[in-house]
C-alpha cells in the first residue's frame, strides 16, 4: 500500500519568489554540489528544492532545476548507500565478539546486519533507477570516524567488541525522534536507573541532531517531485539487483514508498510503533533491549513496550578498539599478521564485487560477494581470540581496510 507523501508544514499557497531569487537558490544548490556535502546540508538542499517545486519558471530554468534536482537526489542516495554500508563493520565487530553465536543477543544483532545490507541494496537500487552508479571502493568508510555525510555530528564510531559504549553509539545511529513509552518507565538520567539508556539526554545534548529517518523522508519527497514532473525520464530498472538481499526493484512511486517505509520501520520503527512487523522490534529497540538488559514486548492496545523479562548479557571476546589505521603487519606476530592480511584481502575483494554488482558485473558479482562475505568471519574470529601483547587481556580484531587489487600481496 502506498504511503502518502510525508506532508511538510507547507502553506497552502506556495510562497511567491522572484525569478532572481529562484535562480539564485538553484545556483546555490548547484555550487554546493561541487563540495563535500553533509547529510544535513543535503537534507536542507532537498527541502529547499521541494519548497520551490511549485513555482513555475520560464523555459531553460526548468531544465536546469530538474538537472540540479536529480543530481542532488543522486548525491543523497550515494550518501545513503555509504551510510548503510558504514554501519555494517561496527555491527559485525560487535556480533562476532559474541562467543555463542546462538545467543539471543547474537541472533538479534545478526538480523540487524542482514537488514542493513537490505537497506543498502535498496538505496543502490534507488540510485540505479535514476541512472546513477553506487560507489563502494572510492567511498570506503574509515574507522574510527564520524558517519558519512555528517550524519549525527559529534558521533564517532569505532571497531570494537560488544560493550555498553559501542551499543550507545549504535543507539544513536538508529535513534528515532522520540522513544515509545516503556512500562515500567525509567526516568531520563538523574533519578531514574542510571544504567539505562536515555534518549532524552542524547537529544538534549545534541539538539541539532537529525535522524536517518528524517533524511529518508526528504529523499521520498524528492523522488515524488522527480516522478511527478512529466519532463523527467522514467525510472529505469536496467542495473538494479534482485535476490535475497534486495527483494524489490524501484520502478515507480509505490516501490519508492515501499523501500523507504521498510528502511525507516526496520531502523527506528515508526512514530507509534517500535515493531517493524509483528513480533520483531526495529533496530533501535533491539539495541535498547540489549543495553538495558531487558526484553520488551509491544502492547499494541496500550501503545507501550512492556518489560517481559531479563535480556542476558552474552559472554564476549574482549576485542579492543582498533586503532586508527589498524594494526600494522610489522608490529604483530606472523600468525596475527596473516589473519589481518587475510581479512583485509577478503574485505577488499568483497568491496570490489559490490562495486561491480550495480554496474557491469550484475547478479554474478553480487552472488560472488555473498560467498566472499562468509569468509570474513573466520579471520575475524581468529583475531578476536588472540590477545594483544600489552592489552591486559584485550584482543585483536579485524581492521576493515580496503586495498586496491595491486596492493594485496603485503
Amino acid at each position: 500500500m502506498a504511503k502518502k507523501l510525508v506532508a511538510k508544514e507547507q502553506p497552502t499557497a506556495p510562497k511567491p519568489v522572484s525569478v532572481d531569487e529562484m535562480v539564485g537558490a538553484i545556483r546555490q544548490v548547484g555550487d554546493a554540489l561541487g563540495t563535500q556535502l553533509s547529510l544535513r546540508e543535503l537534507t536542507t538542499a532537498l527541502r529547499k528544492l521541494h519548497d520551490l517545486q511549485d513555482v513555475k519558471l520560464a523555459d531553460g530554468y526548468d531544465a536546469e532545476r530538474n538537472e540540479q534536482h536529480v543530481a542532488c537526489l543522486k548525491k543523497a542516495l550515494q550518501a545513503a548507500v555509504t551510510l548503510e554500508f558504514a554501519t555494517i563493520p561496527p555491527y559485525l565487530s560487535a556480533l562476532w565478539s559474541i562467543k555463542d553465536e546462538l545467543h539471543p543477543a547474537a541472533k538479534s544483532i545478526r538480523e540487524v546486519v542482514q537488514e542493513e545490507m537490505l537497506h543498502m541494496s535498496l538505496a543502490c537500487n534507488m540510485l540505479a533507477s535514476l541512472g546513477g552508479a553506487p560507489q563502494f571502493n572510492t567511498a570506503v568508510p574509515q574507522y574510527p570516524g564520524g558517519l558519512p555525510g555528517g550524519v549525527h555530528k559529534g558521533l564517532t564510531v569505532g571497531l570494537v567488541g560488544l560493550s555498553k559504549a559501542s551499543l550507545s553509539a549504535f543507539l544513536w545511529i538508529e535513534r528515532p525522534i522520540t522513544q515509545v513509552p516503556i512500562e515500567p518507565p525509567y526516568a531520563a538520567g538523574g533519578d531514574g536507573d542510571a544504567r539505562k539508556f536515555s534518549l532524552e539526554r542524547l537529544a538534549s545534548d545534541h539538539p541539532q541532531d537529525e535522524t536517518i529517518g528524517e533524511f529518508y523522508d526528504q529523499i521520498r519527497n524528492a523522488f515524488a517531485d522527480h516522478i511527478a514532473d512529466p519532463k523527467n525520464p522514467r525510472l529505469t530498472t536496467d542495473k538494479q539487483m534482485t535476490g535475497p538481499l534486495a527483494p524489490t526493484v524501484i520502478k515507480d512511486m509505490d516501490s519508492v514508498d515501499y523501500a523507504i517505509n521498510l528502511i525507516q520501520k526496520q531502523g527506528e520503527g515508526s512514530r507509534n510503533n517500535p515493531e517493524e512487523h509483528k513480533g520483531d522490534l526495529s533496530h533501535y529497540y533491539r539495541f535498547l533491549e540489549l543495553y538495558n538488559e531487558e526484553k520488551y514486548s509491544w502492547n499494541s492496545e496500550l501503545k507501550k513496550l512492556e518489560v517481559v523479562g531479563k535480556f542476558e548479557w552474552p559472554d564476549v571476546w574482549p576485542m579492543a578498539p582498533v586503532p586508527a589505521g589498524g594494526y600494522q603487519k610489522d608490529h604483530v606476530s606472523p600468525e596475527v599478521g596473516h589473519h589481518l592480511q587475510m581479512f583485509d584481502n577478503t574485505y577488499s575483494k568483497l568491496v570490489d564485487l559490490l562495486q561491480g554488482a550495480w554496474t557491469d558485473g550484475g547478479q554474478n558479482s553480487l552472488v560472488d560477494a555473498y560467498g566472499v562475505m562468509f569468509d570474513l568471519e573466520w579471520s575475524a574470529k581468529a583475531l578476536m581470540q588472540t590477545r594483544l601483547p600489552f592489552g591486559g587481556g584485550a584482543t585483536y580484531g579485524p581492521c576493515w581496510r580496503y586495498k586496491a587489487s595491486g596492493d594485496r600481496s603485503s
Partner: protein
Amino acid sequence: MEKEYEYVLVGSGVAGSTVAKRILEHDRAASILILEAGPQVAAKNRRYWWDYVVNANGKESKAYDFTTDQKGESVSDGNTKFEVEGSRVMLYGGSTVHWGGWCLRFKPEDFKLFSNTGLGGDWPFAYDELFPYYEQAEHHLTVCGDVSESWNQEMRPGVPYPRPAFHWTAPDGEMIQAWLKNGIEPGKMPMARYRKCMTTGTCKYCPIGARFSAQLILDELRSDDRNINFEVRTSSPATQVLVDSKSRIRGVEYLDANTGETRRVYAGTVVVCSGTYESPKLLMLSKSRYWQDGIGNDYDLLGRYLVSHSILKVRGELDHNDENWFQEYDFPTLMSRTYDTAQYQAKNKIFLFKNRGLPNIDFGQLMIDGRSRAEIDTLWRASRQQELQAFMEEMGRKDNRVTLSKGKNRFGLPKMHIHFDRSPEAEENGRNWLKLMSKVVADMGYKIIEKKTGIDPPGGHHATGTCRMGRTEKDGVTDKDMRVHGTDNLYVCSNAAFPSGAAVNPTLTLTAMSFRLADHLVSRF
C-alpha cells in the same frame, strides 16, 4: 642432486589435504609434494554452477563428471556384483568434491569387530584413542549435529558439535511418527557444513563452498604464502613406489600425463592417500627384488578384506499429497543409529536414513512439456513417494579382494578386478532388515513399491579394508600407525587401512586418522 621432499603424498583427497594441513601447521616451511592422478576442476565457478542448475538431472551436468568411475573400468565377479561405476571422482580434491557430506563417528564396538563377532578384523586400538582426533575432524569439516541424541550422549558426552544440526523437514515428520511407533529414535544427519549454507539444493557443486570439499583446503593451503614449499601436481598418476632397501622407501615414480614422460620424485617419507582401490594397486605395482609381490605383500594380504556398504531400500507410495510436499535439501536430515549398536553387530547392523530425494516431482520437465500451473498442481497433489534407506555393515572376508587387471584406465592407472562374495548369513540378515523397514513404511500408511525395494549391490564409495591394520605383517598390511609393515617410512592414509567398515560413512573417521597420522609423522624427529 635431485631435490628430496620431506613428504610426498600420493592423492589429493581429504586424507592427503588433511595430513598436509596439519604438517604445515607444525612447520610452515615443510616441503610437501602432493601427486594427484586426475585434473583440476575449479570450484565455486559461476558458469559451472549455472550449467549444473539448468541441467541438473542430465548426464555430465557437473563440470567434474568426466572424472567419475565409468562402466568397464573395473570388473567384478563372485556371488554379488560390486558396483564401482559412479562411486569416485578422480581429480584435485578427490571424492569429497562430489560426496554427500554425512559425518558420523564409528561406534566403540566397530573397533572390536572380530573380538565381538568372530568376523572381520579388530582395530589395533580402541575408540578412545581416536576420540580427540574425531573432535578435530569435526571442527575441520565443520560438522553440524545434535548432541542430545542417545548415541551421542553415550559416545561423546559433553562434546558439542561445531554447528547446530539442520532441522527435520516436513516430510520427515511422517516417517518420524512411524519410527516412534517402532521404537526407532529419530536423529539429525550430521553434515560437513564447512561454510554458511544458503540452501541452493545444489550440494554436488556448491556455488559458495558451503559443503566441505578437500579442494577448498588445498586452495587455501596453496594461496597461503607462508607455505613456501607446498606443491600440488595434477595429472600425475603414480606408477610405482621406489625403494632403496626393504625397509627404506626412496620416493615415487609417476607419469606426467600431460607430456607422457615418466618422472621420479624423492622423499624422506611417502604417504599413499589414494583410497581403498588405488592404494593397494600402487603397492602391488611396486615390485622389486626386496618386495617380489609388491610392497607390504609378503603374506599376500594386499587388496584383501574388501568391504563396502550396500544400500537397503524400501519405497512406498501414498495416493495423495495435499500438503504439496517436495524435496527440500540435497541431503537427508533424518537418520537413526538405533540399530547401529553392539547388540546388532553380529547381525550386520544397519544405519537408517530417509531418502533425501523424495517426495519429488520433475517440475522442470512438466513446464518444458507445456503443462499449466493447474495441471502441475493436480499431478503434484495426486500422490507422493517416500523411501526408507539403510547402510548395512559387512565383515571383511579374505577372498573378497581387489587385484590388478590388464590394461590402464583413462588416468593411466591400472584397471582392476574385484572378487566379492556375500555370506549367506549377511544375505539373510539383509532380508530381515528389509522386513523391518517394510513394516515401518507400511506403518506410515504407504503402499510398498516392490520393484523399488531391495538391496543394492555394494557400492564403491565406502570401500575399506584392502591394506588393513594388523598387529603384525601376518595379520595386516599396515601397523597401528598406518605404516606399511616392514618399512620405516611408507604409510597408507586411507580407508584401505580400516579393519572394519562399520555401518556409517568412513570419511569422518578417515579425517580423524589423518590428523592422528600427521601428529605421529611430525613427532618422529
